[in-house]
C-alpha cells in the first residue's frame, strides 16, 4: 500500500531529476556522447524571456524541431526585462538580455556563468564580444562595451573580468548599430548629423525613446554633435554632465521639439509610418516594419557614428542537471547558424556570422553583411519585401557599420541619479 502511494507520488520533476543524474553518469562514462539522454530531453521545457527583438515564435518552433524540447518565450519591454532578471530569478531558465542589463543584474547572483569550453563555436565569436576589438586595429567605443561585462572570474563569480576567463556571463547572440531613422520623403534633404534631432526645422516632428539607459546615449550623441560639450566618457557621465544633457533636452521639449516619446518598438513604427514624426531614435526592425508598409524610411548613417547594443543569453542560477544540459544544447544550437541567419535577414548581426552564412543566400549575405548591391529582391524571413535589385543596405557593410560605433548602451555609476533626472525630464 505504502509503496503504491509512493510510486504515484513521484512527480514528473523527480523523474526528470532521476533521469538527469543517470544521464549525466552515462554521458560521463561514455565520453563525448551527450546525446545519450536525447529521449529524456523531449520532456524538458526551457522558459526564456527577453525583449521582443529576438523572442520570436519561429525560434521556438525550430527548437522543437531540431532539439526536441520545448522553449517557452515571453517578450517584454526593456525595463520589464531588467526588473524580471533582477527580482524574479525563479520565473525563467534563460534570460535573453542586453549587456547593459547584465551589468545591472549580474551582481544580484540570479544568473550563472557559462563554461566556454562547452561552447562549440566559441572560437568563431566575433572579437567585439571577446577582447572588444572588431579588428586588431579598432578602438573600443565608450559605454558598456559587451566584453567589459562578458566575462566573470569563475562559475560562481559575481564580478567582471577583462580577459577571456573561460566563464561567460552572457553568450552573445545579437547586436546592431543604431542610429536615427528618418522619413526622406517628408524631410527632402540629406541628414548627416545627430544634431538634426534638435533642429528647430523639425519642431513637433521629432521623437526620442523613453528608455533612460538608451535614451541618454542618444542624447549624448546629439549634444556632442551640436558642439555643446565633449564627454570624457558618454557611457559614464558625472552628475553635472547628466544635468547638462537633460537640461538641453528639457528645454527642447518645452519648446515643443518632440511630438511624442516612445517606449515600445511598435509605438516607434506607428509614429513614423503615420507621419507624426519625421526624425527619431529608432531600432532597425522598426525601420523594416515601416518600409514593409510601403512607407519610405531610412536608417540614416551619421557622421558621429552609431550607438550600438548587444544582447545575449544568460542561464538562471537555479538551473541544474538535465535542464542545464538542455540550456547548453540550446545555446550551442543558437550559435550554430540558423537563428543567426534568421536574425541577420532582419538586419541584426549574429555573434558568429560565419555559421549564419550557410543559412543565407549569397545575395542575402552580400546585401546584409557585405553591404553589396542586392541582385534580386531581398525579403524578410516573414516574406515582406525589404529591398529591390540594386539597393544597398543603409550604412554599408558589417565592418563599416560596426566599425563606426561611437558608444554602447550603458549603465553609469550615477545610474540612479540619471534615472531620477530622466523621470523628471519625462514629467517636465
Amino acid at each position, binding site marked *: 500500500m505504502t509503496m503504491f502511494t509512493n510510486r504515484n507520488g513521484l512527480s514528473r520533476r523527480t523523474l526528470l531529476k532521476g533521469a538527469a543524474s543517470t544521464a549525466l553518469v552515462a554521458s560521463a562514462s561514455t565520453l563525448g556522447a551527450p546525446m545519450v539522454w536525447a529521449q529524456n530531453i523531449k520532456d524538458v521545457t526551457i522558459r526564456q524571456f527577453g525583449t521582443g527583438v529576438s523572442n520570436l515564435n519561429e525560434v521556438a518552433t525550430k527548437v522543437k524541431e531540431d532539439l526536441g524540447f520545448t522553449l517557452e518565450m515571453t517578450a517584454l519591454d526593456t525595463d520589464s526585462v531588467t526588473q524580471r532578471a533582477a527580482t524574479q530569478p525563479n520565473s525563467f531558465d534563460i534570460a535573453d538580455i542586453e549587456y547593459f542589463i547584465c551589468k*545591472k543584474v549580474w551582481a544580484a547572483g540570479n544568473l550563472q556563468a557559462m563554461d566556454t569550453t562547452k561552447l562549440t563555436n566559441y572560437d568563431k565569436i566575433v572579437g567585439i564580444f571577446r577582447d572588444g576589438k572588431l579588428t586588431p586595429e579598432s578602438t573600443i567605443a565608450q559605454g558598456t562595451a559587451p566584453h567589459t561585462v562578458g566575462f566573470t572570474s569563475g562559475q560562481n563569480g559575481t564580478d567582471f573580468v577583462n580577459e577571456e576567463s573561460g566563464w561567460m556571463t552572457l553568450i552573445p547572440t545579437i547586436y546592431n548599430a543604431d542610429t536615427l531613422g528618418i522619413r526622406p520623403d517628408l524631410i527632402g534633404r540629406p541628414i548627416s548629423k545627430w544634431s538634426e534631432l534638435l533642429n528647430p526645422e523639425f519642431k513637433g516632428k521629432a521623437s526620442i525613446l523613453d528608455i533612460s539607459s538608451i535614451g541618454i546615449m542618444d542624447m549624448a550623441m546629439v549634444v556632442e554633435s551640436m558642439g555643446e560639450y565633449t564627454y570624457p566618457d558618454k557611457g559614464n557621465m558625472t552628475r553635472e554632465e547628466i544635468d547638462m544633457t537633460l537640461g538641453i533636452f528639457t528645454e527642447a521639449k518645452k519648446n515643443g521639439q518632440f511630438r511624442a516619446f516612445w517606449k515600445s518598438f511598435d509605438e516607434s513604427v506607428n509614429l513614423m509610418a503615420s507621419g507624426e514624426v519625421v526624425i527619431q531614435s529608432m531600432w532597425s526592425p522598426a525601420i523594416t516594419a515601416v518600409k514593409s508598409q510601403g512607407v519610405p524610411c531610412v536608417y540614416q548613417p551619421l557622421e558621429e557614428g552609431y550607438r550600438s547594443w548587444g544582447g545575449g543569453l544568460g542561464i538562471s542560477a537555479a538551473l541544474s542537471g538535465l535542464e542545464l544540459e538542455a540550456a547548453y544544447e540550446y545555446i550551442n544550437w543558437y550559435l550554430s547558424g540558423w537563428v543567426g541567419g534568421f536574425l541577420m535577414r532582419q538586419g541584426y548581426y549574429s555573434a558568429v556570422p560565419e555559421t549564419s552564412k550557410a543559412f543565407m543566400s549569397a545575395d542575402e549575405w552580400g546585401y546584409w553583411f557585405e553591404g553589396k548591391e542586392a541582385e534580386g529582391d531581398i525579403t524578410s524571413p516573414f516574406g515582406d519585401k525589404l529591398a529591390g535589385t540594386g539597393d544597398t543596405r543603409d550604412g554599408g557593410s558589417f565592418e563599416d557599420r560596426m566599425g563606426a560605433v561611437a558608444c554602447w548602451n550603458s549603465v553609469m555609476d550615477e545610474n540612479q541619479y540619471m534615472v531620477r533626472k530622466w*523621470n523628471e525630464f519625462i514629467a517636465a
Partner: protein
Amino acid sequence: MPPEGARPSLPLLTGSPMNKLRENNALKGWMMLSPLALVLLAFLVTPIIMITVVSFWRATEFSIIPAFVWENYDFLFGSPVTYTVFFNTFKYALITWAATFVIGFTVAYYLAFHIRTQTWQIALFLLCTIPFWTSNIIRMISWIPFLGRNGIANSALISWGVIDEPVEWLLFSDFAVILAFVHLYTLFMVVPIFNTMMRIDRSLIEAARDAGANGIQILWNVILPLTKPGIMIGTIFVVTLVMGDFITVRFMSGSQSANVGRLISNDIALLQYPSASATAIVLLLTVLIVIGILLRFVDIRKEL
C-alpha cells in the same frame, strides 16, 4: 453525541451557553461582517501597510533594502517636478470632472425627465453603455488615428476648408488626454445621477410648477439639490479614476505629460519600488483628503 451548534433550534438546548452567545447581537454583527472584513484586511489593508513600510526602504538599481529612511519622501518633496506633476493631476481631474459633469447631468436629465416610457429609458440607457463592451485601452487608442496629424479629424477639417494646415494640438497634448478621460469616464457620472433623478418624487416638480417656477428655476432649486448625492458619487468615481490613471496619460500625451500615476509607473519600471511606494502613499493621502472635502458638501449616507 452531535455537536451543539449543529442543532440550534432544539428547545432542550435553550439556556445553554452556546445559545446565549447566539443571542448576543454584537457578536452576530461581527460574525456577519467578518467575511468582508477579512477580505478587506487581506487584500486592502495589508497591501497598504506593506506599501507604507516599503516607502521607508532604500533601493539600489536591482534590489530593495529594508531600512527606515526618509530619503524617498525627501526626494519627492524636494523636487519641483513633484509639484508640477501633482498640479497636472489636479488639473486633469478638475477639467475632466467639469466636462463629465455637464455631459453626464445633461444625458441623465434627458433620460429621466424627457423620455416618458420606461422601455425607451432602458433602451437608451443601454445604448450609453455600448462603448463599454470593448476594453478601455482600445477605446482610448482608437482616438490616436482619428486625431493624428494626417488623421480623420484633420483631413475632414481641411477638406471642409476650416483649416489650411493640420492642427497639431489634437493629438499628444493635454487636450487629447482630457478628451480620452471624458470619453472613458462620462458613464460613471451618468449612472449615479440618472439613478438619483429617477427617485425624485415627480409631485415635487408639479408643486414647483404650480407655485410658478419656470423650467430653469425648477432645475436649479428642485432637481439639482435633490440630485446632489448622485453627483457626489459620480464625482468620487471620476476624480479617483482620473487621479489614479497612468496609461491614458502616457498614450494620449505621447509620453510627454505626466501625472502622479505615471511617476509611480516609471519608478516601478526602473525598480525604484521604495520611491514608487512613497509617491503612492502621498497620492493615496491626497485622494483621501479630496474625498474627505467632497463628503463635507453632501452627506451621502443621509441622502441615499
